[in-house]
């Protein structure tokens, strides 16, 4: 196959390689694959026709350059002016010829131009319509997708509504249960009171009898007076108890009325949601109807296109027919354009309707339960939590020592009474006490009613309520700092993100956040200690929290190492180092970040 003309090339080896490649090609059927389907006759004819036209133009150009007045031939130049004269005469005589030829060339050009343009316009039209069809199909797909998204939005709202309803019912049940509990306590109290009253009366009577006996026996007056004061004391306590009972009654009544309020509002909200869902459903139905009509129109157009194809094929076969056919084709194209315009408009309106509906759905306010703090029903579980908190958190003294380390961090930012520090989940209030001792204006928000009450007894400014709601109610840039010790591990993820978003809004520029939470780098924490609090959701690695802070927009986020761990493994070798790293490190970590200054 290859001649051996170059000693530097091993021809046999080259031929072997080439033949191997060639047979690979052959066996793979690559050539047939490349050629594919025989080319559409129309396409080919059109391509060939256009090709020919271009070539013919070249011929015409050449013809033009030949069609010029002749120069004086060499032979005649010898005759000087006579030669020139003869040439001029000849050119003059042939002037008509030249003009005729020029006219022919020009008309041929025009004919070609016409043909070419028709051919090209036809191809372009077909291409246009094809791409229009593709566009329609894609748009239809988009509409379908929007509908699906709508559907899932509506389902989401229905779920949220359902969820809200559950919470409301649970709250109601809790409230009712709590009421019952209180009621039975009070009845117990009343009985106790009653019993006490009887006892007291008996005691009084006994006292009287004693008094009389004593008076008769001449016992000292002081002793009698002391008895009397004791009796007075007892009766005072009785009164206080009965007072408290009355107060408790009043609280029960107001709690009951609050609950009724809440349940009424919940009902209202639920009804509102239902209405929204109903209207969404009906819009979807109408949209589906529109989409169906839309699909039908596209299919109709597809049929029109197919028909057009056939018509055009007929046209291209009789390309040199009279202008009337051209007009017929033109009107067909116009008609199709008209149809296309209708479809566009219908499609546009569909899109707009879908967009509107989406925004309406998103405007539905979140259903909230917001109960005024004084009338918050007492949660039985709060007591349990308070108990657990005591048992596992450590003594007050230990906590105080731990928290003082954060003091210097907090003192580095500007906290005023207009922009105070908010502590989320203050628990027993140790941190707030430290702040108060150091004259830093601070307040707290605590979901556990009992713990909140305890704090208030200590004179701390702690409100009972939900952290996120609290932040949402605050104006922007109204807090100097936000601290949350052992809070974030209790929060569901979406709640946490929302809370971070609200906090960056509420913090003043350069405002500080401090989060402390169990550190899963400590293997014991990650596998055991963390789960001692059943309301812990899952450990939050510091990388995750740092990332969240960054995403939300906090700056200078960093992990604080305030409490270096005490090593347990002391051999000093690498193994001990590793083990200490896993088992003897600090149980918690803290992250500090700032709201941006801008």
């Amino acid at each position: 196959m290859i001649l051996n003309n170059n000693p530097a090339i091993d021809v046999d080896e080259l031929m072997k390689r080439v033949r191997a490649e060639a047979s690979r090609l052959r066996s793979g059927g690559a050539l047939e694959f490349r050629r594919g389907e025989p080319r559409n006759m129309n396409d080919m004819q059109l391509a060939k026709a256009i090709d020919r036209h271009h070539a013919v133009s070249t011929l015409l150009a050449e013809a033009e350059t030949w069609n010029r007045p002749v120069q004086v031939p060499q032979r005649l130049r010898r005759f000087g002016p006579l030669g020139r004269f003869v040439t001029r005469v000849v050119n003059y005589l042939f002037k008509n010829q030249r003009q005729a030829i020029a006219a022919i060339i020009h008309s041929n050009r025009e004919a070609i131009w016409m043909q070419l343009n028709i051919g090209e316009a036809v191809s372009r039209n077909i291409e246009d319509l094809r791409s229009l069809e593709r566009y329609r199909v894609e748009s239809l797909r988009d509409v379908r997708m929007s509908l699906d998204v709508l559907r899932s939005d509506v389902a989401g709202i229905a779920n949220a509504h359902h969820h809200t309803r559950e919470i409301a019912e649970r709250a109601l049940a809790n409230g009712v249960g709590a009421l019952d509990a209180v009621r039975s306590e009070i009845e117990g109290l009343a009985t106790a009171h009653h019993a006490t009253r009887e006892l007291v009366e008996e005691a009084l009577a006994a006292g009287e009898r004693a008094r009389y006996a004593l008076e008769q026996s001449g016992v000292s007056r002081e002793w009698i007076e002391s008895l009397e004061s004791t009796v007075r004391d007892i009766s005072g306590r009785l009164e206080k108890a009965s007072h408290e009972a009355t107060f408790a009654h009043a609280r029960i009544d107001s709690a009951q009325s609050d609950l009724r309020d809440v349940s009424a509002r919940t009902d209202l909200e639920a009804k509102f949601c239902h209405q929204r869902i109903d209207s969404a459903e009906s819009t979807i139905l109408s949209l589906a109807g529109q989409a169906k009509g839309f699909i039908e129109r596209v299919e109709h157009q597809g049929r029109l296109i197919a028909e057009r194809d056939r018509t055009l094929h007929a046209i291209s076969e009789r390309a040199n027919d009279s202008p009337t056919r051209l007009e017929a084709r033109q009107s067909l194209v116009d008609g199709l354009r008209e149809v296309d315009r209708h479809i566009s408009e219908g499609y546009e309106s569909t899109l707009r309707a879908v967009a509107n509906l989406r925004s309406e759905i998103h405007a539905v306010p979140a259903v909230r339960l917001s109960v005024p703090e004084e009338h918050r029903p007492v949660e039985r579980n709060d007591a349990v939590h308070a108990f657990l908190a005591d048992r596992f958190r450590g003594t007050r003294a230990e906590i105080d020592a731990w928290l003082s380390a954060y003091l210097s961090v907090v003192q580095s930012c500007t906290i005023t009474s207009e922009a105070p520090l908010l502590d989320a989940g203050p628990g027993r209030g140790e941190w707030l006490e430290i702040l108060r001792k150091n004259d830093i204006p601070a307040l707290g928000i605590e979901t556990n009613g009992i713990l909140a009450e305890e704090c208030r007894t200590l004179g701390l400014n702690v409100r009972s309520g939900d952290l996120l709601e609290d932040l949402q109610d605050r104006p922007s840039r109204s807090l100097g700092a936000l601290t949350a010790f052992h809070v974030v591990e209790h929060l569901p993820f979406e709640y946490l993100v929302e809370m971070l978003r609200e906090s960056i809004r509420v913090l003043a520029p350069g405002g500080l956040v401090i989060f402390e939470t169990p550190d899963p780098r400590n293997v014991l924490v990650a596998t055991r200690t963390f789960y001692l609090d059943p309301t812990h959701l899952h450990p939050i690695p510091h990388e995750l929290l740092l990332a969240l802070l960054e995403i939300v927009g906090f700056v200078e986020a960093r992990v604080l190492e305030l409490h270096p761990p005490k090593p347990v493994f002391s051999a000093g070798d690498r193994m001990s180092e590793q083990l200490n790293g896993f088992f003897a490190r600090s149980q918690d970590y803290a992250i500090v970040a700032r709201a941006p200054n801008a």
Partner: protein
Amino acid sequence: MPRIAVVTPWYGEDAVGGAETVARELATRLALTHDVTMLTTTSRAFLSEWDESYYAVGTTREHGFRVRRFAVDPRERGVFDGVNGSLLGLPMENWDELRLRGDQTDAFIEQSINSFALERYLRDEATGNHDAVIFLPYLYGVVVRGIEVYPGPAHLLPCLHDETYARLPRIQAIFHRAASLLMNSAGEAELALRLYGPGILHKMTVIGLGVEIEDEIGSLPDAVSDPYILYVGRRDRTKNVEFLIDAFRASRLNGAGNAMKLVLAGPGDHSYDDRDNGVVDLGYIDTLTKRALLAGARALVQPSVNESYSRVVMEAWMTRTPVAVHASCLATAMAVEASGAGLIAATREEWMKAFEMFSHDPDGTLREMGERGERYAREFADWERVIPHLLETLFGPGDFESTGKRIDQVVQTLEYGDAISDYAMHIRHRLRTLGYDSDIIAEGIGHRVADEAIAFRDYSLSVSDAVIYHHSIASAATEAVSSLTVPKALIYHNITPARFFEPFEPAFAELLQIGRAQTAGVLPHFDYLFADSDFNGAELSELTDKPVRTIPVVVDFRRFDRMPDPELMRKHLFGIHVLFVGRVSPSKAIGPLLDAFEAYLCFNGEAHLSIVGRFNPADAYYRQLRDSVIERRMEKSVTFAGLVDEETLTAYYRTADIFVTLSEHEGFCVPLVEAMFWDIPIVALGTTAIPETLGPAGILLESSATPLEIGALFHTICSDLNLRLTMIDAQRRRRTFYLPETGERRLDGLISELSK
């Protein structure tokens, strides 16, 4: 006394550097016999702030010639550094991209060292004040813009290196605009040819470069004694010193030449001194010691792969010391090959063999090599030879005197883009240069070349003193010429066999038949018979006993002396581009070419085939080809370019990756020679005159090769770099047979016979 100007960016005692030294030495020597003016700027030196004026504007007299300084322009150094940085940082495999990025790299010239005053002087006054203007070196704004505005013939002394800058379009443009290119070495000339194509061949002259050698010799340092080989130069990595030492150590381990030492001399941070192992590093030495070391060395070793001109090699040769150079360095390798004064080595093993040779000198060839080196250096590194060479290029040997004789040529048709027409015009050019009156007479004249020929019917051949007749088809002129009594030469370009055209153009086929039949009858009337190839000659020899001589077509490359069409460059520079140049006619087997290309498309669907050559759109053969392309859905991959102008043709050759012709009948095939000069691997059908034209170059196919196999061959070539390099290597060697000077000499032979 002729007045010469030298344009260069810096001149002065602080201007040190290769090009600056050349400028000074050139001007000093020219000033001995000519009126020389150095035109430069007020800037101080390459190492100073370029746009800071150090010298005063105006004219001074220094070293025997006038130095006229023009105010240097302010520039934006930051912009320049930015462009320069990105150019220097470009990895070598991306250098070719620069050919497309003219506008983005303009700042390299615009913010270089420039002087508007100097440009204005060159544009308006220089032609009046100087008879010849030399520009050097190629890199700077002063030179580039100077050449752009100078209306007269610019002589560029580029000091060209293989670097990114050489590929910038604006820089390439001055190589085309210059009237002559003065090269320091054959290596530099070869580099320019590879970068810019064969269009510049006709105006490149290797004038060499003078190297000074003092007569005084110092003494050898104590540490050095015979035998030793010497390296002189810097120690940095680009000079390949570590490779050298490594090879030297390996050769000592083999026991070869344990006594021979390697002496290193020259500045550098790192010392490779290792006397126990035979490496003596002397560090910096003065010129006298260098001369002593050169004279006493067995050989000078130059392992660097990036030299444009190695001064020290010339210095060694001047002391009759042979050299060893690296095969990958064009400049030095070509010099050694041309002179035969040393060894060329590439791999470690080859260098070790070289050391062995230097150590033992088995055939006593070292002395002879040294003598050859001295002769070569005297020719190319001696100012005494360089200056006359330069002057000859600047002022020419003078026009030949008119001989008073007229030698005309007769062709059947003169057309643009026709090989025979081009050849005839080239011959006419040569005739007129030699002082003859000469015209081309043709029966049919294409309108694009209407002014180049005289119509046969208008011309009386009786005025000619001799006639060259180009025979390739039946012609009415044939009879008229045959009947002339003046000396007549016939050049036979072969007549395509009629069978190719019978299915498509029966009328033309008949013409061809007649032409062939006429040939035998025509030959006896001609005094001298020539043919383009032995193949053509053999056909004539069958019809006559007269001697037939072969003169290969002399290809005129001047049409490529222009910038390639940028649109085509953008389209085809990257991506596989298969090229065929030739008329679209049945004998050229374009159908099989399309089949083969279709097979290749299965390997690489992005490949493109360009068929560059005249076609007649109404022609049935052409229509058949076009329809076949459309049916096989290849319209996007196949272009029938038709007759193209010179910028377009240059771009086609520049961007081609494979040149292919499956033509079944060729009398010589000029495009093959063009492809060889453009370094395009050639695949051709090995029939008629093609094997003769190509010789050992190109891959020749047998007619049994199937389209699938040919397509697979394209794929193999495109994916195997070694194969491509081997092919290009063979083509580079073969093409020396077709160099313009060689061709001209052959033509001169023909012409002198005719004019006897």
